[in-house]
């Protein structure tokens, strides 16, 4: 027997107009005094509690980008007409879309789900994957793959034992069940993420160019339909404040702030949406993610050319006691909103019925210019939708270069003790191979299905994930995500460009032509001028770097407030680069197989160890200036790699980044268990470095490749003609057990594999 609960009176627009002095919990909802005043000005009275709820979530940092958007002009300023050519849909839509040729369009985006994943690792990570997949679906695409850049605190910290297995199980649980191959990502450990793990999720989707859909509501009389899962009380953040004063023990009080995902429901929703698109019954479409119905209704209306009328009491509920404010805020998963012409409504409903997906007409597009929401016939929201969705506050936050930076940059790696003989080099190699950031990640990646859909041509641990898009021609895409946040800590502008350079290089290493960029900008509090400076520098670095490389940023995400107390994470601008291949069956794997092939090192090496893995692992040192960026060299190298792949000049290629040449050689050897003899003298002499520097420096624009003997002359001729620095440093040799670095050390395959594979398995036991 339910006790009679006193319900708060419905706060209608007319009620609000007659009660201007009612105290409202705007502060508890995270609004600033001037923001509340501005809302009052926009609506010309005090907002109703439903309006206040909508504005509060839509004007949040997460939804409005209020601290970051003033810097986004940097994207536009650095995008040339040539870069725009391949861009079918740019920043601002659910995800960017690029033209990959033959009439195919690809959409991709990376987003963060950091805070929920710390609170509830499994569901936080799962719904992060689910959310980005819906963004891709809402562009009209079939999702074809996911990736997940993950960052955790110290591997051996007890809380990492709680967070990591949950996050990995959540990423796998959702992605495996929805049937998308997980083709890559990152797993990074650093103390700076201890209280602030980063769970970023990337999804890529493909469609024919004519099938692109957009989030807009136009056409007076068109129906607005909510379909998918029912709306429940999950994912309601601060909004419960609105009603909590009057809820007693008989009513729902504390709502969980983390959403709960159901990948089965989303799988059905994907297939249902694709059938709806194929039947041409959808005029506009929007997924329901952050800020739920508040976001979907206001964004659809704002992007359209009219107003919108919604009957909120028609929303199907999992919990009948939900208040209208809560329904507007709920972030229940697996929901979509479509705008449909009345004449196509029956066909729409027939398709959703076939998939057993619940669909409800909530209202329609009107010829007014307001979003009007009613609750059992009474108006509770009456606002200009742009003011909610797109015209939120903009902050010009103060920024200042942090004082500590001079000292940090002055503390270089010159004084760190370096190994003096072959045994020392070997010992450092093995230490690095077993270190948390460089060790084998298969304990994690084997929990993800990398084969489903049958189009995966490369996945972890190769440099990039590669999937086929067109089964007839083999046309497909390669994607990599990268960021060394220690570089960004030392110099955020350079660090961001280094992430861009590495991701670009990885895609080219797999044999694909880099085409477009998405980014997930993970930073501390924007209220800290030092963090804001890091943010500005990073955005500038990415934007200017993209201009030099001629590939546009198509979209992404900003995550602020990744800090504990006054201590922010290292600036972590994760960069995802997408490239295209005419035929992915010609992709280049990262390990060598064929004995007798010659190994070339492309690019030159300088003494650049600051922020690198050797200084981090062996000395726990962070200081100095990060490696130099040379985007011109990256472009040339990329061209060489793509041409070599196309013409069959290389059989394996592996990018040099974390841990330098030593790690790249070890990984290329362990990939298929085929050894190599290596000599470094020529490189050392040419670049004026010692063997240690040759092996462990993290200079950029470098890869190792293995070249069939029959193609060696053509390959070196191409390098010489194009001015690509290259040196023959070894030969693939199945007689050699592991690596024989001549004149310095030999290390057996099993010795390497053992230290490489045991690290995660020991910590996570089994």
């Amino acid at each position, binding site marked *: 027997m339910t006790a009679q609960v006193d319900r708060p009176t419905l706060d209608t627009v007319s009620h609000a107009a007659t009660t201007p002095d009612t105290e409202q919990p705007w502060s508890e909802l995270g609004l600033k005094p001037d923001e509340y005043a501005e809302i009052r000005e926009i609506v010309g009275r005090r907002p109703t509690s439903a309006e206040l709820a909508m504005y509060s979530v839509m004007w949040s940092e997460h939804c409005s980008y209020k601290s970051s958007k003033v810097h986004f002009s940097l994207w536009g300023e650095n995008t040339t007409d040539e870069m725009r050519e391949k861009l079918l849909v740019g920043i601002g839509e659910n995800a960017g879309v690029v033209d990959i040729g033959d009439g195919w369009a690809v959409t991709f985006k990376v987003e963060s789900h950091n805070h929920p994943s710390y609170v509830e690792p499994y569901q936080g990570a799962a719904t992060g994957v689910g959310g980005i997949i819906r963004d891709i679906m809402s562009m009209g695409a079939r999702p074809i793959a996911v990736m997940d850049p993950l960052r955790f605190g110290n591997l051996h910290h007890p809380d990492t034992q709680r967070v990591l297995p949950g996050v990995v199980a959540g990423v796998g649980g959702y992605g495996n069940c929805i049937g998308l191959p997980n083709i890559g990502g990152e797993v990074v450990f650093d103390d700076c993420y201890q209280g602030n793990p980063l769970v970023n999720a990337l999804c890529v989707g493909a469609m024919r160019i004519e099938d692109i859909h957009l989030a807009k509501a136009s056409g007076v009389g068109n129906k607005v339909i909510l379909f998918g899962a029912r709306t429940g009380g999950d994912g309601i953040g601060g909004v419960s404040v609105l009603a909590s004063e009057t809820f007693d023990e008989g009513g729902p009080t504390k709502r969980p702030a983390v959403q709960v995902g159901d990948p089965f429901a989303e799988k059905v929703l994907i297939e249902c949406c694709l059938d709806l698109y194929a039947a041409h019954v959808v005029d506009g479409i929007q997924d329901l993610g952050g800020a739920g119905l508040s976001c979907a209704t206001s964004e659809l209306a704002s992007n359209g050319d009219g107003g919108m009328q919604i009957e909120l009491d028609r929303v199907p509920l999992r919990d009948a006691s939900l208040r209208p404010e809560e329904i507007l805020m709920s972030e229940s998963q697996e929901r979509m909103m479509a705008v449909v012409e009345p004449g196509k409504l029956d066909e729409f409903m027939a398709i959703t019925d076939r998939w057993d997906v619940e669909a409800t007409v909530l209202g329609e597009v009107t010829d007014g210019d307001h979003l009007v929401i009613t609750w059992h016939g009474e108006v509770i929201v009456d606002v200009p939708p742009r003011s909610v969705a797109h015209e939120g506050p903009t902050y010009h936050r103060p920024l200042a270069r942090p004082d500590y930076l001079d000292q940090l940059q002055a503390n270089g790696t010159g004084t760190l003790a370096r190994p003096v003989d072959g045994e020392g080099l070997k010992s450092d190699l093995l230490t690095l191979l077993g270190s948390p950031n460089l060790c084998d990640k298969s304990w994690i990646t084997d*929990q993800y299905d990398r084969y*489903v859909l049958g189009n*995966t*041509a490369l996945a972890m641990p190769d440099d990039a994930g590669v999937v086929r898009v067109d089964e007839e021609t083999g046309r497909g895409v390669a994607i990599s995500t990268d960021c060394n946040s220690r570089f960004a800590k030392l110099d955020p502008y350079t660090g961001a460009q280094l992430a861009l350079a590495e991701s670009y290089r990885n895609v080219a290493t797999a044999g694909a032509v880099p085409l477009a960029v998405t980014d997930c900008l993970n930073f501390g509090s924007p209220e800290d001028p030092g963090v804001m400076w890091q943010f500005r520098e990073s955005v500038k670095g990415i934007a200017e770097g993209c201009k030099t490389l001629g590939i546009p940023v198509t979209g992404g995400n900003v995550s602020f407030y990744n800090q504990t107390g006054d201590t922010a994470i290292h600036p972590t601008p994760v960069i995802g680069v997408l490239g295209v291949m005419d035929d992915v069956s010609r992709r280049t794997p990262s390990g060598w197989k064929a004995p007798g092939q010659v190994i070339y090192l492309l690019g030159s090496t300088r003494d650049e160890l600051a922020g690198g893995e050797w200084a981090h692992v062996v000395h726990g040192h962070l200081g100095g200036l990060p490696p130099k960026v040379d985007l011109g060299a990256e472009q040339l190298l990329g061209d060489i790699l793509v041409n070599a792949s196309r013409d069959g000049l290389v059989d394996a290629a592996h990018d040099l980044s974390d841990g330098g040449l030593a790690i790249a050689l070890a990984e290329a050897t362990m990939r298929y268990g085929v050894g190599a003899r290596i000599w470094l003298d020529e490189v050392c002499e040419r670049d004026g470095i010692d063997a240690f520097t040759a092996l462990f420096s993290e200079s950029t624009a470098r890869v190792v490749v293995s070249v069939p003997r029959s193609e060696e002359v053509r390959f070196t001729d191409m390098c010489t003609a194009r001015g690509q620095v290259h040196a023959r440093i070894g030969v693939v040799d199945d007689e050699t057990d592991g690596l024989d670095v001549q004149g310095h050390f030999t290390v057996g395959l099993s010795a390497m594999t053992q230290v490489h594979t045991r690290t995660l398995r020991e910590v996570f036991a089994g």
Partner: protein
Amino acid sequence: MKVGVVTFPGSLDDRDAARAVRAVGAEAVSLWHGDADLKGVDAVVLPGGFSYGDYLRCGAIARFAPVMDALIPAAQGGLPVLGICNGFQVLCESHLLPGALIRNDHRKFNCVDQRLVVENASTTWTSDFEAGQEITIVLKNGEGGFVADERTLDELEGEGRVVFRYAGDNPNGSYRGIAGISNERGNIVGLMPHPEHCVEEGYGPSTDGLPFFTSVLRQVVSA
């Protein structure tokens, strides 16, 4: 020859199974869970995935789908049926095959390139293999542990109905390392690994999945 591929809500590898069917020159026919209609196909593949979200128990709800009302008697009458992963679970839930699949003993989803030994090369789906042949097939599941009582296991072994066994370390705690089994007639085969992911050079660890489909093609054509 026409091979039906059933799509339940939550089926994931149905498109892959259809691709594998086409790879050997047969016609793939899509069968819908809600229709008790086999559309005159010569064989059926129950694909992998998470039918009905694996709610209740893997395969337990799919077993009651209308399409199964048509499939169960047809299979009992000799129609070749291959159940892959979730499809194997559906076959066990339907009692077309004995035993059950439970959570992996290490409690994790596991996706690996798995070596298998073909123990029986005389079933409808394995006649193009050699008995004792070692093959590599993708294994990916969270609930792949095959269990049955001792008597059933002895019966399966005695009648040569253990069709595939895991080579090397047992990846999931399956009793006696069993990866796949068949019915007495050998027309119904269920296994946890995914042959449909091993039919194209470059898109999987091997092409060892092709003989599954050439086998059934040959049997149906010669029948």
